[in-house]
């Protein structure tokens, strides 16, 4: 069963970006601290997307999910069906890597590592929204999701610019 054409799947990152953009004055530090919360969105999103669109069921996250996502990517490549699907999978792998390294490192004790961690989340979520919008536009069963992902990309880009130091 494919993904439902329900834009609610993107509620979390878009809600975050719209919230930041609506504020006249923003405190970048306060908002950047909320970024790790978006990784929880990635976990749910990746699970649904991989199962419904790619026929890959993931249980363990992030290590096992990373292996399975990588296997799916290689399978698509071997089948010659990579096109707009592979970029979507590569950014999911990048986000899983961020999560794996966050488990190992201790960014909360190290301001430099924390900043790198937050920057990586901003970059990869932006990329995920962009690539998902492309993917959804390429399929014929996700018109509403594609539209919302497109809006989300723009909102997120604005929010990222406002949060940039």
């Amino acid at each position, binding site marked *: 069963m494919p993904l439902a054409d329900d834009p609610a799947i993107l509620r979390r990152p878009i809600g975050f970006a719209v919230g930041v953009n609506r504020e006249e004055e923003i405190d970048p530090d306060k908002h950047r601290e909320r970024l790790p919360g978006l990784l929880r969105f990635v976990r749910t999103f990746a699970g649904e997307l991989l199962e419904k669109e790619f026929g890959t069921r993931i249980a363990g996250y992030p290590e096992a999910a990373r292996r399975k996502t990588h296997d799916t990517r290689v399978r698509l490549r071997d089948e010659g069906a990579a096109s707009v699907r592979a*970029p979507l999978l*590569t950014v999911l792998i990048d986000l899983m890597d961020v999560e794996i390294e966050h488990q190992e490192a201790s960014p909360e004790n190290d301001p430099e590592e924390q900043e790198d961690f937050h920057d990586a989340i901003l970059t990869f979520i932006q*990329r995920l929204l962009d690539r998902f919008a492309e993917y959804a536009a390429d399929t014929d069963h996700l018109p509403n999701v594609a539209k919302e992902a497109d809006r989300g990309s723009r909102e997120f880009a604005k929010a990222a610019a406002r949060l940039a130091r």
Partner: protein
Amino acid sequence: MTDPDEARRAELVALVHADYDATRSMIDGVVRTSIALRAVGLTLTLALLGYALAHSSFAVGLLGLASTWAFLYLDAFHGWLYDEARRRARAVEQLLRLRYQQLERGDEDPDAGLDLDRALAAHRFGQYLALPRFRWRFLRQARPRAVYLLFYGSLTSLAIATAVYGALT
């Protein structure tokens, strides 16, 4: 024909490898020196404290305390160096990972080449050039902290107890 951008990337990545090798050598050297320092420090301090106990000497007990703190300083200095090198090794590995991804993913990741180019442009070459001038406050960055607390904390307590014993007897 060779792509000039790719050839330039390959040369830059080779330089990053040289940086990585320098960082790894520094980590190896610092770890070896720290272990040697702890062994010498422990032997010397225990010898001083043993002598102080045997001869009920307050002065030698104090010397044991001074020796503990001197070795703590030297060890923590190397701990700071280790932390600096570890951070740099992480940064360089991030860059090498981008190279790996760019080669492995090819067209499957349209941003891989750009990410690598940005990281190569931002990379500051030179392990030793990147090392900041030493400040006392940097000693707080020494890692692993638990080892310092346990090892030198125990030696300090022992040295104080020995000095007090020497003073009282």
